[in-house]
C-alpha cells in the first residue's frame, strides 16, 4: 500500500511556510495513533503543479494575503473537483485579518460558499470523538487574535456532502507548531484533531 504523504501547499502570495513544524507533528500523530502507512517526512507541493494530484490532502496556512494565481486557481479547482481535500488554517487567528479575508474569498470562488460545519459532522468522530466540535486552541482561550472562541469550522462541501475545503480560523498552525518530541510534556495530545482530519480525508 502506498503510504500517506502529508503535503503542504505552496502558493505565490503570502507566507505559505509559516508553520514548518506542523507537518512533522501530524505525521508523528498519525503514526502514533493509527496503523495508516505514512511517509516519515512531508512534502511541499506547488498549488499550480500537477503533482498536487498525488496527494489526497493538502495543508495550507499563512499570515499574509492568500491570493492564488490563475494557474494555481485552475489546478486547485480541478484538484477539488477530482476528490482532493484542502485544509486551510488561518495562522493569524483573526477573522478581520488579511489571510482570513483573502482566503475565504479565494476558496469560495473555487469551491463554493464556505458554510459552518455542524459539530456533529463525521469529521469530529471518524477517529477521536470531539463532541463539542473543533477543539479550542490556546490562542483562542487566551483571548489573542480576534478574541473569539470559534464554535465551528467552515467548509465547502462537494455534491455528495463530503468536505472538499476545510477552513479553520482557530490557528491550529500555532497550536500544532512544535517538535513532535515535545508531546510528552502535554497532558492531552492536542494534535488528535489533526489525526481526525487525515483519517477523514482518507476515508470520506
Amino acid at each position: 500500500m502506498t503510504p500517506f504523504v502529508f503535503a503542504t501547499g505552496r502558493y505565490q502570495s503570502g507566507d505559505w511556510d509559516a508553520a514548518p513544524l506542523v507537518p512533522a507533528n501530524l505525521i508523528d500523530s498519525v503514526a502514533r495513533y493509527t496503523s495508516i502507512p505514512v511517509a516519515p517526512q512531508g512534502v511541499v507541493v506547488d498549488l499550480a503543479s500537477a503533482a498536487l494530484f498525488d496527494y489526497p490532502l493538502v495543508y495550507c496556512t499563512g499570515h499574509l494575503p492568500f491570493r492564488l494565481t490563475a494557474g494555481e486557481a485552475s489546478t486547485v479547482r480541478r484538484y477539488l473537483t477530482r476528490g482532493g481535500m484542502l485544509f486551510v488554517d488561518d495562522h493569524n487567528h483573526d477573522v478581520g485579518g488579511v489571510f482570513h479575508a483573502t482566503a475565504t474569498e479565494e476558496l469560495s470562488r473555487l469551491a463554493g460558499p464556505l458554510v459552518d460545519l455542524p459539530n456533529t459532522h463525521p469529521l469530529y468522530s471518524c477517529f477521536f470523538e470531539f463532541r463539542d466540535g473543533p477543539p479550542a486552541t490556546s490562542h483562542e482561550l487566551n483571548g489573542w487574535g480576534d478574541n473569539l472562541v470559534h464554535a465551528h469550522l467552515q467548509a465547502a462541501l462537494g455534491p455528495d456532502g463530503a468536505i472538499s475545503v476545510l477552513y479553520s480560523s482557530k490557528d491550529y498552525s500555532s497550536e500544532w507548531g512544535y517538535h513532535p518530541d515535545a508531546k510528552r510534556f502535554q497532558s492531552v495530545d492536542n494534535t488528535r484533531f489533526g489525526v481526525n482530519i487525515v483519517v477523514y480525508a482518507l476515508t470520506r
Partner: protein
Amino acid sequence: MVDVTAHERATTVRATLLAILVVQALLWGIAAAIVISAMLARPLGRVVALVVAAAVGSAIAARLVWRSRTVRALDRVALWIEEQSASSSYVWPTALDRRYAATLDESLPAVARAIAETDVAGMLRAAAARRLGAAIAAAVASLLVAWGLAHRPPPSIAARTAAAARGGASAASGGPPPSRLAPLTIRVTLPAYAAHAGAPDASRILTDPTVVVALVGSTVAVHGPGVGPGVRVTLVPRAASAAVAPAPASATPTDSAPARARSHQSEGPRAVPTAADDDGWRVVVAMPALPALLRLEDPAHERLVILQPIADAPPTVDLLAPARDTVLRMPDDGGARRSTWPTVSPADTMTLAARAADDIGLADGGFEVIVSSGEEGSGGVQARTVRVGSVTWAGSPRSADLGARLALSSLALAPGMVISVRAVARDGNTISGPGMGTSETRTWRVATRHEGDSLAIDAAPPPPLDTGALSQRAVVIATRALLRRIGRVPHPPRDTIVRAAGRLGDDERTLAERIDGVLNGPQSGDDDDRVAGNGSTLPPDEHRLLDTAAAALGDAARSLAIAEPAAALPRELRALTALDSARALVRRIYLRGQPPAIVIDVARVRLTGAEIPTSARTLPTLASDDAARLDRRLASAIAAWAALPATGPAGGFPLRATVIDSLTVLRLDALTTNDSAAAAIGDAVGALQAGRDAASALERARRAVHVTAAVDTSGRAWAAP
C-alpha cells in the same frame, strides 16, 4: 365360408385380446416397480430397492395375466364378443358350435348375417383403449411419483418438522421409521480446571437443543434413543483451524477433554464415532475453540446442532503498589544537594501489592522485577529478573490479592539502574492455557551520578495588551447583544441592565487604562522596561490614533456606567476603528530561521500514542467478504421463508424444515462475525420451530447484517488527472 370366417375372426380376437392383456399387466407391473423402487431407494439402498421393485412388479404382472387366462378359450372369446355387442343374441357361441358350423349359412342365415355384421375391430379398439389407457396412466403417474420422491428433501427434515409441529410426536404412520435423533439429551460438563467447587453448573443437561453454549474444552455428550448401527455424527468446523478431535465414547469426560481440545489435526468435517449405550447411542465431543456444527444423521433422518464455545479470558491484574514511577538517588552520588529525589538507604524496602481476578479461577501469581543497568552505547544493557511474592492459590478463587516486600539492598543498586515491576497471574486453564495476565509496569530508576532534577521556571510578566482582557471587538459584540436583549423585553429589569452595562463599562475602562499605559508608560512604577510604549517611542500617527481610541473608550465607559448602552455603542465603534487603524500602521517583522527538517521515525512511534480513540461513530467502510456473503445468504433464506405457505405450524412441509436448516447453518457462520445477527437468526429458528411468526426476528437479523455489510458508494473515489 361363414363358419370359417367366424372361427378365424374369433381366433384373431383372442390373439389381440391376449396381447392387450399382457401389455396391460406389464404396464401395471412396471408402474408398481417404479413406485416401490423410488420409495425404498433411500432407506434400503438403490440395488435392494431395484430387486424388490422388480419382484413386486413381476408378481403384479403375473397375477394380472393369470387372472385373464380364460381368454385362451374361443368360447370365452365368443362370450366376450357377445358382451361387447348389445344387439347380438348368442350368435357367436352358436356360430362356433361344431354342430352348426358346417351349415351355418343354410340352417341359420340370420346368425350368419349377424356374425358378418359384428364390428369386432371396433370392440378391440375400445377394449385396448380402456385397458391400456388406464395402465399407461398408472405408469405415467408412477414416474411422476418417483420423480417427486427422488427430489424430496431428506425425510428426516420432514419428520423433524412434523415432530416439532406436533410437539415431538413421531412421523405420521406410513412415513419414515421413527427417528433415533429425537429426543436428544446432551450433557455438558465443564473441563476439570473449571469444575471446581465454586463453579456453578459444572454439569448440566440440555434436551433437544439446537445450540450448545459452553466453555472451550467442555465435554459435550450427546445421547439419543434407539439401538443398532446407522447413526452417523460429523463435526463440521466453522473454520479450518477449529477442528477438535472427538473423544472415544468410552473415555470419561474429565480425563479426555484436555487431550481432545488440544488435538487440532483435521481441517475438514470429521466423523465422530458413536457407541451403543444402555438405551440408545452416545457420542462425546469436546467443545472446540471456534463454533462448529454437529451433524447427526440417521438413515432416514438428519439433525443439526451448533456448538458455540465460550472463550476463557486471561486474568486481569492491577498493580496497586508501587503507585507511580519514581527516581531514587544513591546517598553518595554527589547530587543529593541539588535534588528533591528521595535518597535510598540500605534498609529501604519496596512494597508490592496487586489484585488479580479471573472469570473462571486463578491458579498462581507473583511479581516480576527486572533489574537492568548499563547503556547501549557503553557495554550494553544487563538485566536480570527476580520473582518475588509467588503464590499458588487453592480452590481456584476468582479474585485474590498479591503482596510482597522487596528489600532494595538485595538488588545491589547502583547509579543508573532501572527497576521495572509488574504483577503476573495465571489461571488454571489446562485446555488452551494457562491464560496469563499482567499488570502495567512501574519503574523505579536510580539516578546517575551528578544527575540533577532542577528545572528553572521563571514566571515572565505578560506582555502589554496581551493579558487575556476582552478586546474592543468583543465589547462591541457584547454591547450589541445587550441591546438586543433590551429590545426583546417590553419592560426589561433595570437592575439587570445596570449590572450588565456596568461590567462592560469596567472592561472599557480597563482597556482605556491599558492604552494609556502604552501611551504614557506604566502607572505602577514597576521595572518592566520591555513595555512597548512609553509615550516617546510611538510614531505620531499611532500616538494620535491610540489617543483617539482612549478618549472614545472613556466616553463609552461613562455611558455604560449609567446604563446607556445605546449611547455607548457609537463610541465603542469609534474606538475600535481607531485601534484597528493603529494596528494597521504597526510594521510586523517575522524573524525566522531555516525550519528544521524533521524526519519522523515512524516505526519507533507507531501506535505509541497515549490517547485512545473513542469514536462511537465511524465512516462507512467497505463490507468484508464475509459480511457481504452473509447478507446474500440471509436474503436468500428470507426469500425462501417468505415463500412458505401459511398453513399452520406444519405449513410448507417440508420447505419449512429446509428454511430452518438454512438459518441454522447461517447462524453458525454469523457467530464469529456478527453476534447480533447470530442472536436474531437464532430467534428466527426458534420461532419457526415453534410455529410462530419469524418476521420480527428475521428483520432484526437483516438489520444486523446490513449494518456490517453496508457499502457507501456515494463517496468520491480518489482519482489522478
